């Protein structure tokens, strides 16, 4: 497939035909908006990654390093805040969701195209405000726990307003998707004929719409506290620091499912296509997404077992937490069952999808230690926790995003990716990722607290292992991104349906025309009829 010649001209550039800044900046086309989101979020993924590399370099030595402790604190805060609020939360929903929800349900666009464009520019404006706060950079950690965040000299108020704006943009996008999925499905597309990615995005959007306003009001209260000297969260003024934590996690726990559900949706799309088998337990996967969304609102307190919250509350939250494991487990079992007796093609999207499952099993199982009260007391706020969420978010969500990018690259760009380079990148990423983050479980069990700029020398060996792993991971990411950039311009023209998939986005041109379909298709069957029952691809 490698073609070292000049760019191969595409016969039809579809929605990419119009060029120039204005054509992009004022577009109402969900696909272009999705592409803009994709470039924006991936850019900040790379920026956040650079901070991570510096953090790992600093941690190679236990004592004072080449950056001061304060700078280290600023760096891990920026890494966390950028990665969470500006990359992971919008990464899949706003980019791939925007691009593919209308295509997958057979619509011409989202329900409110203007609102869609507005939420993109609101997102960009929010990022600008967040970067304005870097004049006096934040050193609070991405969790902004009061009272430290109400007392620090850093520009927390500015940051809070910036994140309020990006949150608002997330709400509007979620609202748009809810209405789109309800009202714009193609004729014949019943709820049970929707692709599982749509179910996942529906659950995600519900969480976004209902949880994000709570972090909005929390940021407003934090800003009011700093501006007017109020004491909502500062005990010195009659406030309650635990109230902040409750508010914060009431949003931030559901939001980890905002991060993971879309990735699970992508996996549910990729696995059946590359295993040439119908997805196992379609309804179970669909309803488990909704179940996860629902339960996610009831478990926020498991972040606070040692916070000073009452023992009774801790017990209740721990009990509810284990309910999340059931639907999550169902999904994993279903994906593995889908592979059984399949005809499996290990192309790059499938490799990333399998990697997602591999990492997410580890991430999920280590969650047991954090969800159980007795063991959480020990591993909470240590590197065990850092390992756990990197396995779920980086090893899960981001692998899901990569699977989606490799799967849909031909559809988005009209060109094929270089498979060899994609697989090489995958090899570096899976090795680098595990070498970086697995030692953290051991570190955490041995008692290495998180957010430590300096640490007792006895932890150094494992930190060095982890840092070396981060270099391997970086090489993998670099290969992957260079491959994307190269194939965007020079890849082989892609056919309409390179993977022989059955969902609607593959039944139209690559790249799709501005209005997606020649005529809106009429749906007569569910999208996972692979195998012997009249597989369109065979």
């Amino acid at each position, binding site marked *: 497939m490698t073609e070292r010649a000049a760019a191969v001209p595409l016969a039809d550039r579809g929605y990419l*035909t119009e060029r120039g800044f204005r054509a992009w900046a004022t577009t109402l086309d969900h696909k272009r908006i999705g592409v803009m989101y994709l470039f924006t979020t991936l850019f900040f993924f790379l920026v956040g990654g650079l901070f991570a590399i510096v953090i790992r370099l600093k941690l190679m030595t236990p004592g004072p390093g080449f950056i001061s402790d304060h700078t280290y604190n600023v760096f891990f805060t920026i890494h966390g805040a950028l990665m969470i609020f500006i990359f992971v939360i919008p990464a899949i929903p706003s980019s791939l969701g925007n691009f593919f929800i209308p295509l997958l349900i057979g*619509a*011409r666009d989202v*329900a*409110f195209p203007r609102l869609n464009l507005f939420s993109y520019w609101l997102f960009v404006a929010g990022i600008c405000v967040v970067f304005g706060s870097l004049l006096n950079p934040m050193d609070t950690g991405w969790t902004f726990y009061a009272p430290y965040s109400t007392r620090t000299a850093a520009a927390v108020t500015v940051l809070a307003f910036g994140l309020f704006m990006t949150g608002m943009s997330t*709400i509007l996008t979620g*609202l*748009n998707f*809810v*209405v789109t999925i*309800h*009202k*714009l499905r193609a*004729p014949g597309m019943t709820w049970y004929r929707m692709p599982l990615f749509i179910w996942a995005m529906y659950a995600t959007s519900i969480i976004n*719409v*209902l*949880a*994000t*306003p*709570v972090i*909005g*009001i*929390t940021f*407003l*209260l934090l800003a*009011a506290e700093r501006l*007017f*000297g*109020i*004491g*909502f969260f500062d005990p010195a*003024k*009659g*406030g*309650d620091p635990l*109230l902040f934590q409750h*508010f914060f996690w009431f949003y931030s726990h559901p939001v980890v499912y905002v991060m993971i559900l879309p990735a699970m949706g992508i996996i549910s799309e990729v696995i059946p296509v590359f295993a040439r088998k119908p997805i196992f337990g379609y309804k179970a996967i669909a309803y488990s997404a909704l179940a996860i969304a629902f339960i996610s609102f009831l478990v926020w307190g498991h972040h606070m077992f040692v916070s000073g919250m009452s023992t009774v509350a801790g017990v209740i939250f721990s009990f509810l937490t284990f309910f999340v494991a059931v639907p999550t487990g169902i999904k994993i079992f279903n994906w593995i069952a889908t592979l059984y007796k399949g005809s499996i093609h290990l192309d790059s999207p499938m490799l990333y999808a399998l990697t997602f499952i591999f990492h997410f099993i580890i991430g999920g199982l280590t969650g047991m230690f954090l969800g159980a009260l007795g063991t959480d007391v020990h591993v909470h706020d240590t590197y065990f926790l850092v390992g756990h969420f990197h396995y779920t978010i980086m090893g899960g969500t981001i692998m899901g995003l990569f699977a989606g990018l490799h799967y849909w690259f031909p559809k988005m760009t009209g060109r094929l990716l270089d498979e060899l380079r994609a697989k090489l990148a995958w090899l570096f990423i899976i090795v680098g990722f595990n070498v970086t983050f697995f030692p953290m479980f051991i570190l955490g069990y041995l008692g290495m607290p998180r957010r430590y700029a300096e640490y007792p020398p006895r932890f150094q060996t494992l930190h060095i292992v982890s840092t070396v792993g981060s270099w391997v991971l970086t090489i993998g990411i670099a290969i992957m991104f260079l491959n994307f950039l190269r194939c965007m311009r020079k890849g082989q023209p892609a056919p309409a349906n390179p993977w022989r998939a059955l969902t609607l986005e593959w039944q139209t041109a690559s790249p799709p*025309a*501005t*209005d997606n379909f020649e*005529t*809106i298709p009429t749906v007569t069957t569910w999208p996972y009829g692979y195998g012997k029952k009249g597989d369109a691809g065979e």
Partner: protein
Amino acid sequence: MSSRPPEPSLAPAGAPEKARLGIWTFLATEVLLFGGLFTAYTVFRIAHPAQFHSDYLQLNRLFGALNTVVLICSSLSVAIGIAAIRQGKERALQRCLIITLLLAAAFLGIKYLEWSDHFAHGIYPRTSIFFALYYTMTGLHALHVMAGMGALTTMLVLARRGKFSAEYSTPVEITGIYWHFVDLVWIYLFPLLYLIG
């Protein structure tokens, strides 16, 4: 790009339903936004009952009650306006929108008098948790009133240009639903802050 005839699903007939679902979803987020404040109110009220009682006595119930009446009337006039445009009465709609805007302005005017009276007595957000909540809640509500006035003004301009008719009144209805929500929030705020100290 050849342009095709619009799909049946995109015809104007489908728009109100879409828009209505959109606005209700948006109001759900608003409920959660204010819900955070109501939660804070509950927590602090349980924590400092005596302070809440002594502080609430300093609020002016007359202003509060007057504002409640003003807002309920404004909701009523929006509802009359929507009923009017459904029958195609454009002039009646314009009149109702103007009345609503005037009432909203009256609400903010009374709020201004009330707040400046507090400031004159040295009551600021940092005075106590109760007043911090009082200012935050009524302030956030006032911001919503202003946003609503912006939307109503837009509707008035569009109505004067003759955009609305018996067949097409979606934006007015959406604005109306939002305005009723703003009203409803006040219906909760008024007793919580002014009546049950």
